[in-house]
């Protein structure tokens, strides 16, 4: 409020000084007919809102949740969803529109003024606060009792430790994981010598002749489903997923190990070495594998080396062969950890 000089009569309760600003009257201020119309507009908006709320309830009860309706531009859409969204939106919007119209047309639009004051406290208060602090410090003896002070600081510094330690069991190792560090676990997968590669989805073992030159199959270990059943999660899949591709053996410029292919069939991890997205965008002409998340590109004809993008590590290759029945099998686990880099990876 403004400071009132003693010569002025005190302001009556409920008044605010007008700002020293030019004010133009609105039509609703001067023309009672326009004002009346504005009143009717506001009331109609509130009334329409009531109507839309009723329509919402009617739609909720009356429209089947599977019914669809054709609306131009939007196409075939759920009738209930559209009806509920429109009626709810309209009912709420009209309350707001009515209130704003009321404020703009009928409530006073004369600007008023209040004074601001600096945030800083009066000098006397600051002095008193400082004095009270000194008194408190003196009375507690915090400055005098050095031993109390230091032991208190030590106690306060240590007491949160249990709270942090108790986070340890957020991860309870499974029987297989006991005694292994996270880095060890990240470095091994289900694959081992002689384990068949099955096609993801059908879970049928793959023969070399199933895969034409230029073809690609997403593969998983033959025992994946049982492992998933036992562990109750998808963890093993996230590490063991591979792609099998076949190229003309003459196109293979290098591999991560001698003879890790089988007649031009190569197996690579499907998990990107950048941040771990699954990859399956394979261009057979260039033998490039492109990650859809951050566009790291790997050349599968050249040991899976990175040719573009943010990934720093090549795509790990899985050595393969065929078993006596002629199905493609792994010959060992991956020679290096699959997926994103981590501190202990080396």
């Amino acid at each position, binding site marked *: 409020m403004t400071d009132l000089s003693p010569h002025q009569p005190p302001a009556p309760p409920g008044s605010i000084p007008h700002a020293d600003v030019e004010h133009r009257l609105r039509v609703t201020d001067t023309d009672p007919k326009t004002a009346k119309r504005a009143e009717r507009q506001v009331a109609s908006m509130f009334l329409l809102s009531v109507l839309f709320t009723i329509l919402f309830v009617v739609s909720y009860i009356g429209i089947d949740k599977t019914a669809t309706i054709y609306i131009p531009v939007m196409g075939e859409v759920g009738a209930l969803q559209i009806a509920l*969204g429109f009626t709810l939106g309209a009912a709420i*919007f009209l309350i707001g529109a009515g209130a704003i119209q009321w404020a703009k047309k009928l409530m006073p639009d004369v600007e*008023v003024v209040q004074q601001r004051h600096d945030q800083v406290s009066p000098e006397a208060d600051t002095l008193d606060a400082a004095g009270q602090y000194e008194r408190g410090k003196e009375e507690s003896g915090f400055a005098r009792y050095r031993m109390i002070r230091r032991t208190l600081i030590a106690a306060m510094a240590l007491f949160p430790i249990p709270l942090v330690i108790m986070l340890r069991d957020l991860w309870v190792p499974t029987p297989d994981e006991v005694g292994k560090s996270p880095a060890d676990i990240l470095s091994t997968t289900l694959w081992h010598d002689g384990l068949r590669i099955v096609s993801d989805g059908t879970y049928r073992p793959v023969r070399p002749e199933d895969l034409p030159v230029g073809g690609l199959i997403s593969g998983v270990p033959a025992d994946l489903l049982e492992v998933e059943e036992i562990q109750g999660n998808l963890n093993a899949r996230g590490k063991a997923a591979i792609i099998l591709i076949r190229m003309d053996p003459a196109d293979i410029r290098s591999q991560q190990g001698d003879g890790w292919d089988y007649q031009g069939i190569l197996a690579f991890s499907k998990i990107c070495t950048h*941040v771990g*997205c699954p990859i399956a965008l394979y261009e057979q002409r260039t033998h490039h594998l492109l990650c859809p998340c951050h566009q790291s590109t790997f050349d599968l004809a050249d040991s899976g080396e990175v040719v573009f993008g943010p990934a720093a590590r090549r795509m790990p290759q899985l050595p393969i062969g065929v078993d006596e029945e002629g199905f493609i099998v792994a010959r060992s686990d991956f020679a290096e950890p699959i997926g994103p880099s*981590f501190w202990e990876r080396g």
Partner: protein
Amino acid sequence: MTTSSPIEQAGGATATYVDKRLGSNKFLSRNLAKVFPDHWSFMLGEIALYSFIVVLLTGVFLTLFFKPSMLEVVYDGSYVPLQGVKMSEAYASSLDISFDVRGGLLLRQMHHWGALIFVAAMAVHMFRVFFTGAFRKPREFNWLIGVGLTVLALGAGFSGYSLPDDLLSGTGLQIARGIMQATPVIGTWMAFLLFGGEFPGTSFIPMLYSVHILLIPGLILALVTVHLMLVWVQKHTQFPGPGRTNDNVVGYPLMPVYMAKAGGFFFVVFGIIALIGGLVTINPIWVFGPFTPDQVSAGSQPDWYIGFLDGALRIMPNWETVIFGWTISWNIMIPAMIMPGILFTAIALYPFIESWVTGDKREHNLLDRPRNAPTRTGIGVMSIVFYCLLWVGGANDIIAVAFDLSINAITWFLRVAIFVLPPIAFVVTKRACLGLQRRDREKLLHGFESGRVLRLPHGEFIEVHQPLSPKDLAVITSKTDIVPLPAPERTDADGVRNKLYRIQALRHRLSTFFYGDNVPKPSAAEIEAGQHHAAHDAAIEAPLHDYEDADQIHTFHGGVLHHPGMEETNAQQIADRSHD
């Protein structure tokens, strides 16, 4: 006293009852008439607040129907294409919300749209506060709270986006885990603890759920409350205008005008989010299918506010170093930890840096026009350009497909542009601001150019300059000239070495960089003379308006001064004009 209805009498009695126990009438007396200034840009923060409330309300409904569990179930709901498919309970219940709970899809989409609008409104609100200097003393704390809220909002958005456990959101989590693992020393342990072992595990979604519905919203609610209390206590800033000073606040009283406008605006925002949520599909999780860690779809995109981080990850070169057998993944740490860390720290500290550089310790309740702080405005535009380039990077695959460009070329362009374009944006913005300052100075010294050319009786052509309206005059003269800090002396008068020389010299250079180029505001006398002169111009033209065909003269942007009672001689007029 006016007559009261029975309801009002009951209300009055209640107020008295409460007041006797809480002293609440003191608060009402001070605050029912509290003045709030009006400007369209002040609604940006309101949009953020209101969309947050809508997100809270719709979120409460969603918690009643959502099951945050990664246990495997077989879907048997009414969405036919996924019937019989194994999926997590989280995904199945998200499908139920979308197809079997009436209004569930509406609430889910309102929740998602509301969240997008919440973050967008916060960002634009932050731009407004930054470019107008509203963060200056005494409002630095509120700026910090705002930065904290922005970070929390990103966390709220990402944690919510990940809950339905569809293929798209699961891939987002997979990326988040990959980033987490790249943290030096503790990365793998952090990832194993948070995910309860390997990815995806079965414990992360329940954990994320409590973070999303309890921890983050609780923090946001607490900070929003403090944010608003500070606005209330410190009173809102206002734009310059007639009658507005640094020491007053001009606007409308809380009751009734501001209550009706702001309260009404809440319903407008709420209603519009409901309309969008009802009519525009967002995040159709049923299209993506359940999450499995070995599948992904091309063209996957995060929500818009995560795009800049994704873009940074995409355009970063593949640097990695191995030291003594330890791996340091610069290719992940720089874009996903170091860059955002620096960005948000710089944003948070900006008010303190600017105040230190400029030596400005006054309270500022009157907002700056962005042109009058060209360096600040330049820094702001530079940062926005930086952010937008990263954002473009996040969509490089979409852009490559849409415009048939090489994705490698786009990535290389961005790797260079991220260092080149922001400084260019800074220089261009700063120059544009200085140009606008010069134009303001012209307006004060000569009035504004009306575009109407007159030929005087003695043959001279002049363009009529008109005096500024009181509003323009108040706005333009609100500029305060700040002199850069003086260069320090190496030794004082007694030859004592100045120990603070280096730091003072740095401040001098920075403050010259900040203010050195500013176009000084003319003195009050010059302004008055200038406006007087413009008024004189306008007076010469005035008789033209008596002409019957004055309109026609104006159409040709010119005219001949010719009126019967010619008061001034040519010589007088020439003498008048030669003052310039």
